[in-house]
């Protein structure tokens, strides 16, 4: 089954790692990347009929932060059902709690080890595809490598 993954991250390296990891995982997935919050929102508005199956969202982005984007997405009827996976370096518990409250599906802390990265992406995609849009519990929220 083909599916589309959207990655919003301004860091080119991370985009590259994510793409390589996804390729090595050999999934029938196509990856679209946007590099900042404004671009992300524009992309969503322009692809209402063909929304991706999931969005990996970095928090620290120029112009519009990931947190702002999440809030906008969840408040918009048109794409509030889009599963959002936070993809960030931060490990701040308060921030995690807040994002969970805002309606993010999962939280991935960017791993330093590439094999870890692959396994995290794999597990997350599986979870989303299995559970579809059902939200996670707080315990399941953070996906460990």
């Amino acid at each position: 089954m083909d599916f589309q993954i959207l990655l919003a991250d301004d860091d080119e390296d991370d985009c590259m790692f994510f793409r390589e990891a996804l390729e090595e995982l050999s999934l029938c997935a196509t990856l679209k990347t946007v590099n900042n919050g404004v671009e992300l929102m524009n992309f969503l508005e322009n692809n209402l009929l063909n929304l991706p199956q999931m969005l990996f969202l970095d928090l620290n982005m120029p112009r519009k932060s990931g947190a702002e984007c999440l809030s906008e997405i969840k408040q918009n009827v048109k794409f509030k059902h889009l599963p959002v996976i936070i993809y960030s370096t931060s490990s701040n518990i308060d921030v995690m709690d807040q994002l969970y409250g805002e309606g993010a599906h999962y939280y991935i802390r960017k791993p330093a080890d590439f094999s870890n990265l692959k396994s995290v992406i794999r597990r997350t995609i599986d979870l989303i595809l299995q559970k579809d849009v059902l939200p996670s519990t707080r315990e399941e929220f953070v996906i460990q490598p």
Partner: protein
Amino acid sequence: MKLNSAHKANNLSFLENSGQMGMLIREMDWDNSSLGPIENWPVSLRTTLAIILHSSYPMFLFWGDELICFYNDAYRPSLGKEGKHPAIGKRGKEVWPEIWDFIGPLIKEVVTTAKPVSYSDQLVPFYRNGRMEDIYWTFCYSAAFDDNGNVNGVVVTCTETTETVITKRELQESERRLRTMIAQAPVSIAIFQGKDHVTELANSLALQMWGRREDEVLGQPILEAMPELKSQGIKELLDDVYNTGKTFSTSEFPVQIMRKGNLNMAYLNFSFEPLLDLSGNIEGIMALGIEVTDQVISRKGIEESEKKFRLLADSLPQFVWTANPEGNLNYFNQSVFEFSGLSQDQLINKGWLQMVHPGDRKNNFRAWEDSIATGKDFLLEHRFRRHDGEYRWQLSRAKPQYNDEGIIQMWVGSSTDIQEQKVFLDELEKQVQERTAELLELYESLKKSEQRYHLMVEEVQDYAILYLNPEGIVVNWNTGAEKIKGYRADEIIGKNFSNFYTEDDRKSGLPKRLLGLAAKKGKALQEGWRVRKDGTLFWASVVITAVHNEINEVIGYSKVTHDLTVKKESDDALKEKQAELELKNIELQKMNKELQSFAYISSHDLQEPLRKIQTFASRIIEKDHDTLSENGKYLFKRMQLSAERMQSLIDDLLAYSRTHNLEGDFERINLNLIIEQVKQDLSEELLQKNAIIQADNTCMVNIIPFQFKQLFYNLISNSLKFAKPDEPVHITIKNEYVPGNLLEGEYFQENTKYCHITFSDNGIGFEQKYSEKIFELFQRLYGKTEYPGTGIGLAIIKRIVENHHGVITAQGELGKGATFHIYLPVAD
């Protein structure tokens, strides 16, 4: 009936010798009247007229249907001079129009019933003598019959009684006046008639005197109406006057009279006078009287009291005497006679002076004359000569007695023997003088002590000590006051102490309030600005104390003022410094916070490139594993280890910087709950090291939960890290409450309770000399390869404990394990 016919033949014989009215009838022309010529008059009319005209009693006749009038000579004067006369032959209604309303019906009644109608003293006013006159009549209307025996007229027999009526009325009026006079007379008046003395008249004063109502006495013999008089000689007196005609008069006659059911003694002034009738016979008695009971009783009272006074005076051992307003003595009691052996005659007027000691006489006489002249009380000590020649001291006093008009009526004096007292007094006086001398001495010493005290107060320089009267007026002023406030004593004594207050304080009534407070509570304390004489201000500490007299009334205030300007200034400076310090503190805190967020953000951002280095390294190792030389692979591994180490450094630094954050709220929580959470987080590692954590002796603590979680996480991780390789890890955690005074160390406060948490393990331990060093940041006791670590873990622990205002100490022995003691203060 021969006689009648003879008269008839003679025709006019009935008018013969019938006076002027007869003449008038005869001369009148009757031919044209309703009666017709006299010759034709019926016998009945002739007969009636004959009777009337020959009567000397006034008579009048109304005859026939027209009631033609006739009257005789006796009647004529009643018609007056210019009146109705001559009315003979005229119709009744024409003659008496003004009274026809009255007599018309009378005539008609008589004609109809044939019964006579009579009146006496009836007022029938009619016109005569040129006017309407009130005329009184006694009259009778009787029927006159015609020849057939039918009533055909009315004969009026009448007498004018006007004069009699008027006389009678005047008599009545005069009697009424007399009775009124008697009734209103200011004396009791009564008249008794006959030998039985029947009461005919008694005025209200008489009734009042007798205690009787009018109906009880009028028409009654007075002695029947007042039986109590029978046995008191009144009957004899009345009888005597009635029989002899001699007036009896008496005054203050005592008589018992029944009044309102009580027999009262009354005193009367009265006279019985005989009343004579026209022929000079005694027909009754007039009694005139005045009751003088009150006067008699009051006079008797005075007499009685004077008698008592004399008895009393005579029974007194003191001398009692009286004098007239001129100062002449006129009475002495018995004691005077007995003492002096002199008689009344020898003593009266100025005779008493011979009793006075010659040495005292002049003085005595002058004092007495002075009292008489001024009306002032007389008071004198002097000696009187006893009958045996011995002189004894006397205290004499006399008071004037005034009448209602305030004029002296008499003097009443007394003299008391004070011989013994005088002797005793002399002795007493001597003693008093001695005692007075002693007191004076005592007083002098007291005065000296007070002076010393005053001097002391006055000389005190550092305190203004003043005395205020109850109104706050300065009464006393010391040197200190002058020094502090700048006024000299003479400038401020007599002025109100509010002068020392600032205008604002005066306006708000502070001085008065402080006095009120002192009066109420006994004392008032205050610190504030006060004003010196020169207008400058000083900071004063003031104590106002209320001073009470023996009945607990406030009689004044003592006021002690201390100039605290210097202290105030230093206090103010200190406060300013404190404020400055606080400000700096806040600034510092702010800077600290900034620094923390800087540390957090920078370490956060540091992670980013580090993570990428690691990822790139892992990509190279993975992808180009085969093309790398062995040495290259080794160096790559080293590089990765370095990067990992740097990552844990950054993680720990982040954790360390976060422990500054005090925003986490304190919670009361069981320590075990925290430990359980940590055990779960570290479950894998614990399993791996075969570790046992024994935490059964735990209880509730007041902590910031997430920080303590971190604390135990670090401690347990530490124990796992420094475990002996061949021995399962055994950790013991317990806590208990300990009072501060049982703990050693300067950082424990005696009055505070502490929660003491003990954490010990069986690891490799450490040397005791490092027990403090291990808590320092980046301090490590072992090489990185042996025991990896950043040297931040224990620093974080220390910081967390400090965040809880607690203390942590470490105890260790190499090879035997380590023990950490945490002490947290407990707020009640």
